[in-house]
Structures are given as structure tokens and as C-alpha cells.
């Protein structure tokens, strides 16, 4: 379990990093929490490793007024401790407690989690839920990809091999929005068997807008738009009715930890829990 030989470079600017990626077989090293184990197993054998940890512009969380911008190199622990981010999105605090363990949260980055695109991971689910905008830099400049266009398949995203994920922009929620996150995992800190996250905006006791996203039940996190539409204008009491049957269209994977059937059985439970919790919180913040 030792990696094959590779060339290592550590650029100090985005331009240098992009130039270093102009290579047949280069990989970006951020927190290394997924890439390095894969290299140790020799499942990936990049010829060149481009360590972007010196790109200090990518390390910040910035309040831009109506939005929060999260640099790609922000660590999970840093996100969980950020008053700007967690103030606007309390769901981040809740979700970060499920991201692996302290040591991994100290090293792993948000950009790395998104670029790795594990269908059960927390950040892809949050970004999907919150309609994040992902800023990707390439040699021709930067482009913005919406969360729904970002994930293609397990471990496959819109990022080209010569591009770098630079930041994620999240629009701040309007007042009266509640959020909730929950997941079922084999053990504390494991990848979710199924994860669910919701935001609910209420006014005068009625849901004006709801969002529901699920992880672990498809190739990438899924927005449950049917449910969201059904809930518009409804009281929170209607949540269970709105989610009825929503799992029927899903075809989660069977693996050694959980059957497809079991995963599907978790969907209504977790969806109901996060929507109801979010609705309660929404009522609390108006």
C-alpha cells in the first residue's frame, strides 16, 4: 500500500497551478483524504501531483452581502467554525458533525469533497440543496456551474482535467427559512447510507417554498422537486402526504452495507424528519 512514483509540484498562484495541470496525467492534491488512500491502493496512479495548498486565495470564507463565498480549500472544521457561514446556514454546523472524524475534518476540503463527488458525501448534498454556484477556473478563465449541472455520475463532475474548482457561492436564505440535515450511517462518521437535507420557508403558518435533497440513493445527490412543488402553499401538516411514494422512483444501489430496498425504505422517514424539523425552525425564526 505505497503509491507509485509521481512528480510533485506545489504552485503558489492559480496561474501556475493551471499551467501545471497542462499534462497528460495530473491530479490536484487538496486535503488528500480521498486521493491519497486511492493512490496507496494504486487505484489511481497520477504521474504528476499538483498540490494547491499554497493557493491562499482559496482558503477563505467571504461574506458578499447577499451571498457567502467559500474557497475550495476551506476545511470541513473551518466551515463548521465559521460564524459567517454557519450564521447564514445553520445546516452546515449540523451536517459537519457527520463528516468523518476530527482528523479528517481538519484536513479534508470542501472543494475536494465536491470534486470527488461521492454520492453519499455531505457537501455535495448541501450544495445540491442550497443551489450552490460552483466557480471553476481553466486556462481560458473561469466559468460558473450550477449544482444541478455539476454532478454527472459517482466520482464524475463537470470539472475538466485541466481545471480547478475555485469556490462555491451560496445565496443567503430569506428570513423565515428553516433548515435541517440528518443521515443514517453504519457508524458515527461513516459515509451515509442515506442522507437527507431540507430547507423550508414559511409565512403565516404556510410553506411558501421547500427544498428537499437526498444523498446515497442515486449516482449523485438528488433534489426531490415533486415533493417541493406539492408543499408550496401547504401547512407543515401536509409533509407526510407530500412525500408519500416519493421513494418509488428511486433506484438506490445494493451494496454490502445496505440493500437497495432498505435504502429506499429510509427515504420517507428521513425526508419527513428533515422537512418537519426545517418547518419548525422556520416558524421559530420568523
Amino acid at each position, binding site marked *: *500500500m*505505497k*503509491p*507509485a*512514483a509521481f512528480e510533485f509540484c506545489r504552485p503558489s498562484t492559480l496561474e501556475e497551478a493551471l499551467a501545471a495541470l497542462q499534462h497528460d496525467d495530473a491530479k490536484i492534491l487538496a486535503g488528500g483524504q480521498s486521493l491519497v*488512500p486511492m493512490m496507496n*491502493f*494504486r487505484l489511481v496512479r497520477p504521474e504528476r501531483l499538483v498540490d494547491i495548498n499554497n493557493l491562499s486565495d482559496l482558503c477563505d470564507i467571504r461574506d458578499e452581502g447577499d451571498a457567502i463565498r467559500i474557497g475550495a480549500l476551506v476545511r470541513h472544521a473551518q466551515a463548521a467554525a465559521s460564524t459567517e457561514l454557519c450564521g447564514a446556514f445553520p445546516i452546515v454546523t449540523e451536517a459537519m458533525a457527520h463528516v468523518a472524524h476530527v482528523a479528517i475534518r481538519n484536513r479534508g476540503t470542501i472543494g475536494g469533497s465536491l470534486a470527488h463527488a461521492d454520492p453519499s458525501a455531505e457537501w455535495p448534498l448541501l450544495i445540491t440543496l442550497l443551489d450552490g454556484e460552483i466557480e471553476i477556473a481553466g486556462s481560458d478563465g473561469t466559468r460558473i456551474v450550477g449544482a444541478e449541472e455539476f454532478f454527472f455520475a459517482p466520482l464524475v463532475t463537470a470539472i475538466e482535467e485541466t481545471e480547478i474548482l475555485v469556490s462555491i457561492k451560496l445565496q443567503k436564505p430569506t428570513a423565515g427559512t428553516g433548515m435541517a440535515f440528518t443521515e*443514517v450511517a*453504519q*457508524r*458515527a*462518521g*461513516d*459515509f451515509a*447510507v442515506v442522507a437527507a437535507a431540507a430547507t423550508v420557508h414559511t409565512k403565516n403558518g404556510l410553506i411558501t417554498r421547500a427544498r428537499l435533497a437526498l444523498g446515497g440513493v442515486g449516482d449523485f445527490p438528488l433534489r426531490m422537486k415533486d415533493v417541493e412543488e406539492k408543499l408550496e402553499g401547504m401547512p407543515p401538516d401536509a409533509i407526510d402526504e407530500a412525500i408519500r411514494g416519493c421513494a418509488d422512483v428511486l433506484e438506490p444501489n445494493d451494496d*454490502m*452495507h*445496505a*440493500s437497495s*430496498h*432498505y435504502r429506499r*425504505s*429510509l427515504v420517507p*422517514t*428521513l425526508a419527513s424528519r428533515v422537512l418537519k424539523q426545517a418547518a419548525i425552525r422556520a416558524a421559530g425564526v420568523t
Partner: protein
Amino acid sequence: MNDVSSQRGVDSIPSKISRPKYIGEPVQRLEDPRLLTGAGRFTSDIRLERMVHLAFVRSDQAHAKISEIDFGDALEMPGVLAIYTAGDFTDIPDISAPSRMKNYHATHCPVLARDVVRYVGEPVAVVVATDRYLAEDAATSIVVEYEPLGASSNVDGALAAGAVQLHDDVPGNLVLERVFATGEAPEQIAAASHVVEGRFRLKRKSPLAMENRAYVVDYDRGRDALTLYGSTQIPGVVRDELSRLLGMPGNRIRVVAPDVGGGFGGKGSIYPEEILVVAIARRLARPVKYVSDRLEDLTSTSQGFDEVVKARLAFDDDGTFIALEAEVIGDIGAYSIYPWTAALEPVQVASFLPGPYRTPHYWGRVRAVCTPKPPTGPYRGVGRPMAVFALERLVDKAAAHLGMDRAEIRRRNLVRPEEFPHRIGSGIIWNRSGFMECLEAAVETIDYAGFKKRQEAARKEGRWIGQGIGTYAELTGIGSRIAVAPGMPINTGSETATVRIDATGAVVAMFATASHGQSLETTLAQIVAEELGVRPEDVQIMQGDTAVAVHGTGTYASRSAVIGGGAAIKSTRSLLTKVKRVAGRLFDVDPDRVETGDGEIFVPGTNHRIRFADLARAVYSDMATLPLDARETLESQESFDPYLGTTTSSTHIAEVEIDPETLAIRLTRFVVAEDCGKMINPQVVDGQVHGGVAQGVGVALLEELQYDETGQLLSASLADYLIPTSAEVPHIEVIHLETELPDNPGGFRGMGEGGTIGAPAAIANAVADALAHLDLDITELPITPSKLHRLIVDKRATKDME
């Protein structure tokens, strides 16, 4: 004079019956300062001049003929010194574990696969290079061509008529068949008015020590002598077998187990890699290092359990057990491991199955079946976790069948205090131990009586909670009459201790044990200190090194405190006699009046008082003090063999809560009441119980080596092979009982494995209890939320059909 003994005066209570100073006290672990500050020395820390590294090419096929091994350009790659295959080691005999048991067929395991591979992970070739990275680079460029030979990866297929045979000399893939019978179990069951039955399965498990297996060999070319540093539990066994396999006398082979990061049985057998590092070091006349990685650990370290038990229990209207019948099938993997043989685990299942109960009739058949998977070997609890799981489920089912309380049915059948010694149907003899007392203590502590009400109230709120009992007895500190593994031709029943006082007055005690987490450096030091009259921190315990012991097998099978501790007491007492004789001469008093304590030698009621250093100087250095005939050798060596074993007993009670929607299983409470005789160090006993229960939690809820039908391991990393973390292990309440001390030198009973023995059964019973309203049976461990979901769905389907 402020000495307590002196104040008491010469004629007051003799010190030998005064309260022990160190035995029974929570003495801080002497290992801790070095291990907690990163100053331990593990095998992997050893770096020697000119040392070379190994990487293995391992089979990616379960059962196949090796048709070609193509080195490609591996030999020309940077840093590569040599590549070896089976043909390079024709001088080393195959590893084979003999046994005197009838119907046993030994297997022959070459150090590198010869012509045929028998499990995924079996070593096929080995690369020697100047570092591990380069060795792995070369290993990955070696291509092995295989012709698949079939062979079923499960026991049903392996036992089927006409099944592909894994070994030519193991007919029908049956390594062993053995029957235990007392009375007329089949007839009694046929005639009984009440019978419960079940088919129970414990899945295959990895010992998973934190430290992977590692070996370093330092070869002395000038003397043709070698030192093997290795992460082993059995340095003495390794030394003896290396001597035989390599044709070298033992005085040129030294095996050292330095700090070892856990074993749990996985480091208790001989491995091909262990022999190869030695052979290669000798061939190249260079130090050789091999540190296995986690993937190799999961695929080539001995594995545990993997059994199916079909059992029936007959009882009368009062719940009195009449007869037990069992079919045990063990999937032992590809080879019968040395020295224990593949019989160890499944035979122990059948021999411990009658448990701590009076069941007059017993019939149990064991079959050990080989399949193309890694060999199984000892794992903490050996056989008993499976036996206790199966039996305790049957006991709960019997209680449910009669509508009887689950504690009450146990009370009615446990061997009662006045009934010891009691021989169970498999022939094991239980001596007095707290069977009933442990049950009562656990039941009282956890408020068993109040639980039914709590459970009913919780069910009304839509919450599923359950409580489960696991009660068991085990044999520990097993002497030479019984032997740890049946029919095994090595002696695991004795230990020798050498205790000496050197010229500085310092105390060294030497053992053939090999502590790898058991705290023996502390507990053995407590014993020697207690007996000799020094402080534990003054005693240096040397063990895990064949240079300090002529014979001895190591640390496993809950034996070291009982047998090593017994030898320590005998040797230290013998040394103390010499100390008193010398001191008597120095003080000119009768040696019987001499006492020792806190590192001093004195005569109560007098001003005679010297330190051990003064005594040593008088004996060794100051030749003017003692006449020639009084200069004792301040060293004693005694052996201890308990001949039989001592009975340890315990009751575990678990409480669980299951989320009715997600089916997540949470352990909410765990109580252990155990009788391990006299505790040497309660803190160490607690630690062993906690660790054992944590592993039992893994057995019950998480750990499973999953193989597909072609024999490929699916759970080949710690992302997929799930061990419990601190978040999954509840607070564990431990109650210690000393009902009646066993008749051995210290009154000690072994307790290192017990946590893993009782916990799976208690948790399985608790889960079944939580789901009692759904009428579900828990028959396979680990039980996971996904498997529970399957059970519930199947149950609903069956009900709908009806």
C-alpha cells in the same frame, strides 16, 4: 522508628497474612509512560544497517493452478535485489499442523504457493528491494497467469458430493469430524414435550489489531545466528518451529516480540512471511524487514469464527433442560493453521456448547471444512462466542415458549454452588465459580425486574427497547492435561519464571509470555513485588524474548495471569527464602524472623534494616561480609502447570433501543458481572473487559468479512470492514465477584477473552427482545439495520401469505 511492622511488635500479626500491598490494587500501568508518549518500540520502528524490504505478489484467484509467473522487467527495476518463488525454497518444509485427533487431516502450506493457490491473498512471489516503495513497484509489474480450478467458497458447496477438492489429501474437504456424546440426546429430544431449535451463524471476522503484522530479521553472518523481531504472541513457538523448519539449533535463533500493538489471536500462529523473512535474511546475509499493510492484514492474517450451528434444546414443563443436540460446521479456510490446527475454533464451539447449565444429555458433531479463503485461527474467545450465542438464543426461546422469565429459566438450570465440580456433556469439568452469583449481580444492577414495565411504556410511545442476557462459563489458565487445542503436540500448559536480584540490588523477572496489550509488565511486577517485598516499579519484567526462557509458548487463551502469575509466585517465594537466609546470616538472627517490604529487608522489633542493594553487595561484591558458603545465587526458577484449568464465569446484560423507522440499533446500557477470582489489578481487569465487550459489539453489530461466490474479499479496507469506534461502544458497568478462589498459587482466573464471549449473545438477545412484538428471530450475527429490514419485510410477507 516509623515502620508499621515495627510498631506492631515482633509477636503481633505475622506479615504474611496482612493485607496485600499491591495485588488487588489499581497500580498505574508501568507500560503507560512509554506507550503514551510515543516512546514504545514496535517492530516497525527497528531500522538496521543494510536492511532490505519485502513486497509480496499475492494471489488474486481463490483456487487456481499457477501456469506462469512472468517477472517482466521487475528484476531490472531500481533497487530490486531478488525475486523469489516457491522453487527457490524447496529446502523449507511446508507448514503443517499435526494433531493426535482421529479423523483429522493436516494440510500442507508452502511458504510460497507451489503450483496451486488456495485463497485470494496467498503469497505467490516475493520481491526484495532497498525500500518498500521500490519493492511494491516491482511486485506490481510481475504477472501471474492462473488456470481456475473451481472449488466452492462456501461450506455447503465444499461438502457437496463430487465437490472440487482443495487438497488432494483432504477427502471431501473435511479436515476434521468429531462427535461428543453423553447420554441419549436424540432419543430424549424425540420424546420431550418441549423443544426449541435454531440455525445460528456467526460471520467471518478479522482479529484486526491496530498494528499490522511486522517482522525484522537481524542476521549475524559470522555466527550463522539470527534474531527475528516480530509482532507475535508466541515467540517461543516461532523459535521452536523455525529451528525445525530451517534445521538450525535454537541457540542460534532468538525471537523477540518487542512492543506489540494488539493481537486478539491474529498474531498467535506461524505465518509464511515470518519464515520467509528469516530464510531471505540468511540467503542474502542482510537484515530484512517486512511490514504488512492493512490490505494484507485483512487478506492474510488468520480470521475468526465463520460457523453454522444447528441446535435443538429439549426441556420439561418447568423449564428444566433435558437434552441438547448440535451440528457445528466450521468454514476453516484454506489451511489448517500451525500450531493450533483448524479444529481449534469449531471443536471449541461443540465442547463449550452445553455452557454453564445442567443438561444431562448432549450430542454434538463438529465438521471442519476447508474452502478457498484465508485460514481461520484463534480469535479472542475461541469457539465460545459462537457457542454462547447459539445456546443463549435457545435458552431465551425456551423461556418464550413456556412464557417463563428469562432470568428464572437460567436460575433453574445453572450449575448450583453445591454441585461443583460438574462435568458437562462434552466432558469439560466446571469447578466452583460464580455462575449464579454473576447472574444475580447483573440482574440486580441493571434493574432487570423493572425492565418489562419500561419496555411496555416505551412500546406505547412507539419506542422499541430490549434487554438481553448472555451468561457463560469458560476454562482459563489451561494446564498440560487439557491443552489449549485438542491433540496438539505442543505444551501450552506450563510457564516458567526466573526471578533474580542483580549486583545492584535490582529485581528482574523473566517469563516466556508475550504481552501485547494485557499489561503483564504491570501485573506480573505487582505479583513479584508483593511476594518479594519491593515496589512494582522496582521490578523489571522481561518477556517476549526467547533469550530469557528455555521454553514457553506466549500469551493467548487467557493463560498468562494464571500460569505466568503462578510461576511468578512460586519463583519469587523461592528467591525470598534465599534472601531471608542471607539476611539471617547478616543480622545473625533466625531467617524466619526476617521480613521484607518496600525494598527493605528488616527484622521487626530490632534496628536490623538494610536495602536490597546492601544485600546484593554483600552477596556479589563485598567479599568480606559473608563466608563462601553463605553467598547464595540470588536467582530462582520455578515452573507452574495447573494441570487442569480454572473456571471463569460471567453474565452480560445489554440494553438496546431500535429506531422503529430507520432500524438503527443503539446500545444504551451494558452490565458485566464476572468472577475472575482474585484480581491482580482491577483497573487492568476493567480494561480487558471493556476491550473484550467492544470487540463483542463488533461481532454482534458490525464486523463481517464478506466474500463473494468466487472467493474475492469485498470488505477489503477499513471503509468496508467496520469495527466499533468509541461512539458505538456504550459505557460498560463491571461488577467483580470473588465467590471462591480457585486452588492455584494466586487464586487467579483468566479473564482476557471473556468480554468477547458474552457480549454477542447478550446483544443478540436484546435485539430479539426489542423486536419480540414482531416475532422475529435473531440467528445471524452481525445483525445490521439493513438485515433487520430484510427480516421484517420477510416476516410481513409470510404473515400476508397466511
